[in-house]
């Protein structure tokens, strides 16, 4: 019998697990896919929003501002790449400038620190590549950028290290409730638990309806992105947002913590699992981004992707105990700024469970650390010390990102081990660079097969069924 079962290990599920791991509880996390952070948590803008956007007084506003503060704290503690680079919302005309005033007012009310309105000239002094047509900007110094999948992974890993049980490839198929909850999963395994946290992202309404009446519906909104080579990474230093206008909400241009440039997203009504990009969507993103930063070289694009926002009919996160199933806590409809808010949502979930009668007693010991070795960031002597210890640190497998064999092996034997090419990529960046795995994926594939003791043809690119290779030669 579990005290709490968390359904979904995106950033919200991971944050809830990370928070509950501090308490003397038996906790399980059920994840449908073969890795954590495979849904919206891996495909988003990777921004830590300052918090001037949500409506004052809303839960979103409170959790955004608090989540921003916590995200930096946690990321620094757990070795997650993060940077407080600040953001600018740029205005092209008088109407936009009024919008900046509105955002400024909201930000002050929401308690956003270090917020100011600056002129177009001042904005261009900070960001020389901004369009000359920029007439003013809202500067939010508390905004930042983060590696969203590493943030999710870090919180999940620390939770697991402290006793939380993570079940991958475990899709919830039904939930029954009597005295307790009985959760059935695709693997046939049944979980009994006193409390449930629903953090199932774009599928959170489906999961909620397994046990209660419909209180919200997810209306997925897709967003398409460009990820450009590091040669474009210095085009801007801060996150550059636009004001919404009759053509849409505008798109952002930002550096990523890995040094690339991210451009996007658009907003199109979508279906839950549609992660495809379209020519129209990409054209819109390209055209719109060039309004803010006209010098972006899109020929240096290395990847396009789409993410799904778990929007609902409400202009608010759907957080709270199910009205029809006591003990069932929805952390649902977590759309933007969900990544920023996640850590605060995790803490808030614990407070809500407390109110729902869950007995909480802090553990005597909690290991809140996550050592990570990133070879290329180390000083020379340290590099040599590691190579002496393990010569695999001297073998660079991914040349674009300078990732060594030892780091890939570590990713395959970490607290939550990678089980696919993309899982390795999320853990140590191998294959994330400009050649997109062209050179290193055959080598990474062999290392995966060797370390996991499986045949090369069984190695997956991402989820179950995404085998990279078809067969050995002459077996067709």
């Amino acid at each position: 019998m579990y005290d709490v079962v968390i359904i979904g290990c995106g950033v919200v599920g991971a944050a809830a697990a990370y928070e509950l791991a501090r308490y003397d509880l038996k906790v399980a996390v059920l994840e449908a896919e073969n890795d954590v952070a495979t849904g919206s948590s891996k495909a988003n803008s990777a921004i830590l929003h300052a918090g001037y956007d949500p409506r004052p007084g809303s839960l979103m506003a409170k959790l955004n501002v608090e989540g921003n503060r916590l995200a930096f704290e946690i990321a620094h503690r757990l070795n997650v790449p993060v940077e407080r680079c600040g953001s600018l919302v740029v205005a092209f005309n008088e109407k936009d400038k009024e919008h900046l005033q509105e955002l400024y007012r909201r930000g002050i009310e929401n308690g956003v620190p270090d917020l100011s309105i600056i002129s177009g000239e001042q904005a261009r002094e900070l960001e020389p590549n901004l369009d000359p047509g920029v007439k003013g900007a809202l500067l939010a110094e508390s905004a930042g950028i983060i590696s969203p999948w590493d943030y999710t992974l870090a919180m999940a890993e620390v939770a697991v290290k402290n006793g939380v049980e993570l079940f991958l490839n475990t899709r919830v198929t039904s939930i029954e409730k009597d005295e307790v909850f009985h959760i059935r999963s695709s693997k046939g395994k049944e979980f009994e638990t006193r409390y449930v946290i629903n953090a199932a992202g774009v599928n959170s309404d489906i999961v909620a309806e397994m046990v209660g009446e419909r209180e919200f519906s997810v209306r997925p909104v897709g967003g398409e992105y460009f990820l450009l080579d590091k040669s474009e990474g210095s085009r801007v230093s801060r996150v550059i947002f636009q004001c919404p206008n009759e053509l849409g909400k505008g798109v952002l241009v930002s550096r990523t913590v890995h040094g690339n440039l991210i451009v996007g997203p658009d907003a199109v009504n979508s279906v839950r699992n549609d992660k495809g990009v379209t020519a129209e969507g990409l054209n819109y993103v390209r055209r719109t981004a060039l309004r803010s930063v006209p010098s972006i070289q899109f020929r240096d694009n290395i990847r396009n992707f789409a993410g799904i926002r778990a929007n609902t009919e409400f202009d608010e996160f759907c957080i709270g105990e199910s009205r029809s199933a006591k003990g069932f806590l929805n952390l649902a409809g977590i759309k933007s700024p969900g990544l920023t808010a996640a850590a605060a949502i995790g803490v808030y979930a614990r407070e809500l469970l407390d109110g729902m009668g869950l007995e909480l007693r802090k553990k005597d010991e909690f290991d809140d650390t996550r050592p990570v070795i990133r070879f290329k960031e180390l000083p020379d002597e340290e590099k040599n010390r590691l190579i002496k210890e393990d010569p695999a640190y001297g073998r660079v497998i991914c040349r674009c990102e300078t990732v060594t064999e030892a780091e890939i092996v570590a990713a395959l034997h970490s607290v939550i081990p990678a089980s696919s090419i993309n899982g390795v990529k999320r853990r140590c960046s191998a294959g994330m660079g400009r050649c997109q795995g062209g050179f290193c994926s055959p080598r990474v594939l062999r290392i995966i097969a060797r370390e996991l003791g499986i045949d090369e043809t069984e190695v997956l690119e991402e989820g179950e069924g995404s085998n990279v290779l078809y067969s050995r030669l002459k077996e067709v």
Partner: protein
Amino acid sequence: MYDLIVVGGGPAGLAAANAAWQKGIKKILILERDRELGGILNQCIHNGFGVKTFGEALSGPEYAYRFEKMLEDTGVEVKTDTMVLDIDDDRTVEAVNPTDGFVRYPAKAVILAMGCRERTRGAISIPGTRPAGVFSAGTAQRYMNIDGFMVGKRVVILGSGDIGLIMARRLTLEGAKVLACVEIMPVSSGLRANIARCLDDFGIPLLLSHTVTEIRGDKRVSGVTVQKVDEHMQPIPGTEQLFDCDTLLLSVGLVPENELTKNADISLDPRTRGAYVYENRETEKEGVFACGNVLHVHDLVDFVSEEATFAGEAAADYILNGERPRDCYRVTTSGGVTYTVPQMIRKDSGMKLVNIYMRVNRRVRKGDIVIRAGETEIARYHKENLAPGEMINTALPSVLMQKAEGHDALEVALEETE
């Protein structure tokens, strides 16, 4: 201290090191990332390499072996499994490998011979989902020819570059069905011989002025949509064809691998995406040379070896005799010549012949490559069957350059004669 460090042990690096040794340079080090020398030749198991260099058609590994054999009789030092991480201003090369660790090697001269990489799906932003089964053609070639695996059984190839054409044949011979080779341009960028031998001989359709407009599939590719394009390369609505395939190979161009070059503050020619070089393939940074596909993408390895040979000889000359005066002619282009290498020719190069490599932007049955200084014609070369996919090589005798005295630029132009 090494006299010469060669970064990369593929065809360019091997030929350059060998040439420098023959010119009397004795302390030479080749740093190669892979476990073996030979670079991409090792996975090119088809034949056709070396017709110009050796007068016979060799496979890629055989061609590489000829050069490795030449090196065996020299004292050139080789470190494989060694990654170069940086090249400092004073030509100190930072490298790492499992046995020596992280080491800095100072050198009198450095030759960049890192080759090129393939353009990816991202570079051309193909719409659709992101399933497994999308490979760049060279990656698929490595999986098949080095590792011994089949990448799929029903395949569409986007782009008719040479690697794509070679892979169409290779996949077919291994039992896969290649449904089509799709090319967005009205002409193929591949060598004509490869179109005949790799597509026509196997009945594989070449769809010119077509492109892939959507990749489908959730876990693995389940199909691709192909559309005809108009003269602006925009897909024409109503021309969609769905191919039921499990694999898409991309052969959509090569990009010189110049990250080390950029980090060393050597500026790149946006046309070639390689360094600007003098006639001896010396970059603007003294004592740093570049050759082969890192300098500009070649279509024949024989030209890589040729270019690497003058780079190696030039590096030897630099080590023994010092830097030549940099007073030079800038090379400009017109009439459909898209680039030249070199981009600068020293007025006093010390070379008898200056090899100028170039490409043109269209097919021309008969035409002249004309080199002028102002109004003065310096040289004229009659050429036949010019095409964008086929590099043109001219050897300009240095004596002719006396005619250019008083000028700062040499113009290289294409004139159609038929």
